[in-house]
């Protein structure tokens, strides 16, 4: 119980720490950021439920006004900005990544978690992100989807990294990879 709690808090802090890596602002208001790597890792390492909880914890503090999003942003205002869809999608992305990592055990962990990170952090997350952008920027779903291709190369790299890190951690500290306990 205490272990789960500490690890959830740690991963929420990890997302915040990744926010220190400078984001790259794009004209339509959704930045390229390293923080979605943190979201993927929450899922692949902590598993579906705890991973989603870690992301929710992070979002709660962002909503409280702590400047934890890349570039030192925070506050309730973000949840009505172009980036809102992504923020809402974050916990579900972690959940999806965790769900797949937990269940897909027939391939090596590195591959399973890499694919899981891609499904959660790209497929699921983009679905929410595009919807959010379409609403806030008053664009059609197709137009918004087109804008979002700018994220693909970066997010593919993040998914690979998530797979590598998860596998390395499983070797060094198997007990910490809650998604596979």
């Amino acid at each position, binding site marked *: 119980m205490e272990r789960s709690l500490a690890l959830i808090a740690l991963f929420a802090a990890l997302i915040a720490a990744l926010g220190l890596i400078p984001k790259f602002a794009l004209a339509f208001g959704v930045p390229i950021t390293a923080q979605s790597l943190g979201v993927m890792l929450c899922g692949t390492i902590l598993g579906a439920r705890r991973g989603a909880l870690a992301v929710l914890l992070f979002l709660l503090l962002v909503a409280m006004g702590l*400047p*934890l999003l890349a570039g030192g942003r925070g506050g309730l205002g973000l949840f009505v900005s172009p980036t809102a869809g992504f923020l809402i999608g974050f916990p579900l992305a972690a959940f999806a990544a965790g769900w797949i990592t937990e269940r897909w055990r027939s391939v090596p962990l590195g591959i399973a978690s890499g694919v899981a990170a891609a499904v959660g952090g790209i497929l699921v997350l983009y679905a929410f992100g595009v919807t959010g952008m379409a609403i806030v920027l008053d664009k059609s779903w197709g137009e918004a989807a087109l804008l979002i291709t700018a994220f693909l190369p970066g997010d593919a790299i993040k998914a690979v990294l998530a797979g590598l890190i998860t596998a*390395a951690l499983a070797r060094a500290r198997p007990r910490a990879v809650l998604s596979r306990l």
Partner: protein
Amino acid sequence: MISLTSPVETRAHGWPAGAKLATLCAATMVLFAMQSLTLHLVAFGACLALYAAPGWVFLRAGLRRLWILWPFVGLIAVWHLITGAPQDGAIIALRMLSAVGLANLVTMTTRLSDMIAVIRWLATPLRRVGLSTRALELAIALMIRFTPVLVEKGTHLSRAWRTRSPKGVNWRIVMPFTLLAIDDAEHVADALKARGGLAPGAAER
């Protein structure tokens, strides 16, 4: 970014945390609504004055924490100079500096326990319907704790590296740092458990 401790005890440490947070919330909303460069200059000046009020040591600590924003300010400046809208750029940069500056001010002058008391108060409806909010309160406390502690541990790690290497840290530090973070979480879990942790009965008040 959230480092909770201030080098000196200020008068603001005694103010109620809820009021400080509410004011911060309101101030941030105003900042985002304001579109005038003059007003933003005034707001930023006021923010600096708040930092200066408790004295030189506090001001220096506060400015050091704001300094990490310079890449963003630089990026915004370059971008808006290229696009030919320097005034917009100045507004965005100032708004960011003021907003982060104020948020840091609140965190620097508010004890973690006071911050959590606010969350606890906000979560009152959950307890009314019989849910325990203890885990939530602890999770927030721990998350806020991890950020500065990880920075500190990272400092120790890069120091250890420098004692044995003429060059600075490289990518090989990633895994050691990850393990260090995980181990720290394990130690926190133990330390927490040793003092009652989430046990029912512990800390129900």
